[in-house]
């Protein structure tokens, strides 16, 4: 009996040593706000190229938090949208709230090699049962859309911009 009590006390002592909560969706880090440019979502796609690897602020309504990973937020306004990528899970309760996010602009280049890799991964994951028919078809459609867009714009790549999360605050 003494040994059981000892094990329990030890376990509780270990747990109580670590008590800080750093979940992405529930934390408002006190980030330096001065000098951080604000990008309206309506002009995000047009201007993001100038801010790659730089810190920016964006404001919008959280349309949804990614169901699978929980680490992606889709931020929207009437005029535009952007994905926010976190390292930790976002709180689903953010959905429908107007939020200002601070983060680093990142560029993802989509070219033919990228499309081929996506195609290959999609076929593999569908074969393994990780995606259903609708998800498989939707991804194939998206890949074709990228190819059509590159062809229409006569370019070898498309730049997709998103934001790597640093902090957020609710809009009053």
């Amino acid at each position, binding site marked *: 009996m003494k*040994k059981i009590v000892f094990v329990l006390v030890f376990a509780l002592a270990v747990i109580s040593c670590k008590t800080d909560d750093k979940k992405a969706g529930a934390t408002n880090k006190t980030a330096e706000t001065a000098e951080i440019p604000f990008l309206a979502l309506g002009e995000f796609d047009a201007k993001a190229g100038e801010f790659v690897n730089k810190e920016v602020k964006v404001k919008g*309504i959280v349309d949804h938090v990614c169901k699978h990973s929980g680490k992606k937020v889709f931020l*929207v306004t009437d005029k535009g949208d952007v994905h926010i990528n976190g390292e930790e899970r976002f709180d689903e309760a953010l959905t*429908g709230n107007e939020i200002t996010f601070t983060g680093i602009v990142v560029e993802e280049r989509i070219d033919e090699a990228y499309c081929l890799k996506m195609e290959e991964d999609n076929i593999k994951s569908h074969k393994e049962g990780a995606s259903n028919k609708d998800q498989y078809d939707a991804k194939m459609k998206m890949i074709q859309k990228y190819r059509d867009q590159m062809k229409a714009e006569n370019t070898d790549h498309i730049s997709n911009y998103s934001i790597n999360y640093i902090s957020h605050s609710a809009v009053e």
Partner: protein
Amino acid sequence: MKNLRKWSRILHRDIGFFFIGTTLIYAISGIALNHLSDWNPNYSVENKNFTTQINLENNASVKNNILLLLEEVDDKENYKQHYYPNAQNLKIFLKGGSSIMVDVESGAGRAEYLKKRPLFYDVNYLHYNPNKIWMWFSDIFASALILFSITSLFMIKGKKGVIGRGGIYLVLGIIVPILFLVYYL
């Protein structure tokens, strides 16, 4: 060896009892989250279609009109935010994660009501390591699983133990993930 067997049984049994609840949490949420493609493990979704005559075009009085709509189809107290994904559609966010999408031209709308799934919502929440306290607790649990594996090698002696039937099961259990890796990796 006798002492090792005795202590293996004691630790396996007593710590095993302690972690029965945690094992069930990870087992139930593990199955639930394995099938994300097939269902929403956190919420049950109820859809309700409706049509409205209220003008929901994007103008100065739209907020009031949205509240009028909510009085018709839900409750105006549930309003959170709204936006127009495109010129034809309006999306209204409600408290609790529910939402309404309306075609502003035809007035056809669809409300999607989310309701937390009892038990699943809670065990899934824990599965995702909601904070550092749970992270450390689940690390202790994972360590206990390693301990259970080791102690199980010494608990039973003879032909039912690791040098007999138990050993065959042990090898088979290792072969399954290896075969999977060989085939899929």
